[in-house]
C-alpha cells in the first residue's frame, strides 16, 4: 500500500520542481534565522538569491555533528523556543548531547514519513503494532509511535526492557507488527521459540532500524518468525526514524525525498558521487522548521539509485548501509564513540589511559566490554578495592555513553600499542 501516492510516486521532474521550491525557501529561512548558517554562507560568499533550485545545493555549506555540539543546546534552532513543542537528543562525541527541536508541523511531517514506512510494510488501520524502541530522548520510540498512530493502527507502546511482557501481549493482543531494533527482534524470536509460542502469534511484519544489520539477519528474522522484515532508517539530526524505509521488494530504502534531499559524497573530497557509487550520505532537510540542516554529513556509507521501483514509488533508494566514515559504533541503538570512553577514563584518572572496546552480539543482544589496564598507582592488593574500582569505571562509562558496560581489568601492557592510528575497538558482530 502507498500512503501518499501524490508525493511518493510523482515524476522525477515534478519532484525536482518541488525540491527546488522548498530549498529556495529553506535557504532564505536559515540565512535569516540561524546565525551559524548566515556566517557560513557569508564566508563562502553566497547569498540566498544565489540558490535558485536544487541543482545549486552544492554551493551550500556542510553541517556536521560537531556543529550541533558547538551550538549546544538550541543554537541551530530556526524558530523561537515558543514554537518548539518537543526536543530529542542523542549522545555526542564528548558526552555532550546532540539536541534537536521540533515544531508542531515538524512532528506532523515526521508522523507522515513514518506512516509511509509502515504502509510500505503493508500495514494499516486494522493492524496492532507494538512499538518496542525505547521511549524518551531517543527518537525511536516516540517517532515510531506517532507514525503508527497517524496510520490509524492500534498502537501498543511497549518500549524496551520487558521481553516476557512483550511476548505475552503479542499473543494476547494479536499483534500483527512490531517496530524495534533487529537484534532485539531476534532476541524476542528466541524467547518465543523457547516458550513454544511462535504458533500462537499473528505477527506479519517487523519494521526494524536504529542499528546496522545485514541482509542475512533480515532473512533470519523472516524465517524464524514467518514474517516480512523491513529496514527503516533515520537519525535524530534529520528527524528520527522514517527518513527512508524499504518496500516489499527489498531493493533499497526509499527516501522521503520531498522532505529530505539526499546526496552521496566522496568522504575525502566531498565531491558528489555518481549514481550507484558508494560514498557518504548527506541530507538537507527541505521542510524542517525547528532545526533545519543544510547538507548534514551523516557519516553513513551507502549508494543511491534513482531507477523506478517495482512497487511504483519513484523516490530514490539507498542501498544497504556499508559502514561509516568515522569511528562511531551503534550498540543497542546507542551511538558510541571511542573518544567518549577515552575522555571518561582520562577524566576519572584512576586507570591507565589504555583501553580496548570489545563489541559482540551474544544471544542477539549487543554487548560492550571495556578492557582497562590496571595502573601502578591504583593497583591494590585487596580484591574489594579492585572490585570497587571496576564498578566505579563501569558507572563512569555508563554515565558517559548511556550504555551498560562490562569492565574488565587487565594486566599492564597487554593492550596493543599501535604505532599509527590506535585501535580501540574490536567489533565481533558480523554485520557486513
Amino acid at each position: 500500500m502507498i500512503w501518499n501516492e501524490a508525493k511518493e510516486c510523482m515524476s522525477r521532474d515534478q519532484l525536482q520542481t518541488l525540491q527546488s521550491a522548498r530549498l529556495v525557501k529553506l535557504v532564505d529561512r536559515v540565512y535569516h534565522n540561524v546565525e551559524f548558517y548566515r556566517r557560513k554562507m557569508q564566508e563562502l560568499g553566497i547569498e540566498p538569491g544565489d540558490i535558485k533550485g536544487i541543482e545549486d545545493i552544492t554551493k551550500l555549506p556542510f553541517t556536521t555533528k560537531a556543529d550541533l555540539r558547538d551550538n549546544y543546546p538550541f543554537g541551530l534552532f530556526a524558530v523561537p523556543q515558543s514554537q518548539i513543542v518537543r526536543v530529542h537528543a542523542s549522545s555526542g562525541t564528548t558526552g555532550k548531547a546532540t539536541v534537536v527541536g521540533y515544531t508542531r508541523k515538524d512532528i506532523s511531517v515526521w508522523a507522515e514519513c513514518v506512516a509511509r514506512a509502515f504502509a510500505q510494510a503493508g500495514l494499516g488501520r486494522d493492524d496492532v503494532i507494538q512499538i518496542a524502541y525505547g521511549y524518551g530522548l531517543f527518537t525511536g520510540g516516540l517517532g515510531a509511535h506517532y507514525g503508527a498512530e497517524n496510520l490509524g493502527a492500534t498502537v501498543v507502546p511497549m518500549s524496551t526492557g520487558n521481553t516476557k511482557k512483550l511476548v505475552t501481549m503479542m499473543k494476547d493482543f494479536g499483534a500483527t507488527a512490531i517496530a524495534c531494533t533487529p537484534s532485539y527482534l531476534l532476541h524476542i524470536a528466541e524467547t518465543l521459540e523457547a516458550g513454544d509460542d511462535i504458533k500462537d502469534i499473528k505477527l506479519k511484519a517487523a519494521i526494524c532500524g536504529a542499528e546496522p544489520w545485514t541482509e542475512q539477519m533480515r532473512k533470519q528474522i523472516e524465517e524464524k518468525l514467518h514474517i516480512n522484515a523491513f529496514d527503516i532508517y533515520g537519525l535524530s539530526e534529520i528527524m528520527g526514524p522514517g527518513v527512508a524505509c524499504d518496500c516489499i521488494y527489498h531493493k533499497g530504502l526509499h527516501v522521503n525525498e520531498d522532505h529530505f534531499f539526499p546526496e552521496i559524497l566522496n568522504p575525502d573530497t566531498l565531491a558528489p558521487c555518481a549514481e550507484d557509487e558508494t560514498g557518504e550520505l548527506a541530507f538537507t532537510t527541505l521542510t524542517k522548521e525547528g532545526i533545519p540542516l543544510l547538507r548534514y554529513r551523516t557519516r553513513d556509507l551507502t549508494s543511491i539509485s534513482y531507477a523506478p521501483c517495482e512497487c511504483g514509488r519513484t523516490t530514490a533508494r539507498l542501498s544497504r548501509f556499508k559502514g561509516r566514515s568515522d569511528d562511531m559504533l551503534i550498540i543497542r541503538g546507542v551511538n558510541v564513540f571511542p573518544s567518549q570512553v577515552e575522555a571518561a577514563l582520562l577524566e576519572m584518572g584512576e586507570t591507565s589511559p589504555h583501553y580496548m572496546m570489545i563489541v559482540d552480539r551474544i544471544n542477539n543482544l549487543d554487548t560492550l566490554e571495556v578492557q582497562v589496564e590496571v595502573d601502578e598507582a591504583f593497583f591494590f592488593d585487596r580484591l574489594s578495592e579492585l572490585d570497587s574500582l571496576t564498578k566505579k569505571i563501569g558507572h563512569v562509562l555508563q554515565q558517559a555513553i548511556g550504555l551498560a558496560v562490562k569492565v574488565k581489568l587487565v594486566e599492564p601492557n597487554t593492550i596493543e600499542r599501535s604505532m599509527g592510528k590506535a585501535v580501540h575497538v574490536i567489533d565481533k558482530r558480523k554485520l557486513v
Partner: protein
Amino acid sequence: MLVNQLSVFMENKEGRLEQVLETLAEGNININSLSLAEATDYGMLRMMVSDPEAGKKALKEKGFMARLTPVLAVDVADEVGQLQVVLTKIKQAGINIEYVYSMKAGGDDGATIIIRTSDLEKTQEVLKA
C-alpha cells in the same frame, strides 16, 4: 612482626601463574608461602618470598603488576583454638581482618599466620598486649 608480602595482579589466563613462578625461580627467589584469591576476571597472588624487593623487580621486568604490601606474620602455638584466640583479640579491638593465610603449618616450633587488617599498627599493639 611486620613483613613485606609480594602481591601480583594476574588476569585469569592460562599459564599465568606458571609464568610468575618461573620468573621467581629464574631470579633464585624462594617462595615460603602463597595464597591465590580469585575474582571473575582476575586473581591476586600473595606470596611470602625469600627476597620480596628482588622478587618485585624481577616480576616487573617481565611486565607483571607486582607490589609489596605490608602484612603481619603472627606466630601461634600449634594447638587447638590458638588462631581463634588471636583473631578474637583483633575483632574485639574493632579491627577488620581483610585476609588470612597460613605460612608455616606447625609442628614443634608452632605455626605462622599471615594477617592483613585494616590497621596493622593497632593490630600489632593488640597482639602484644
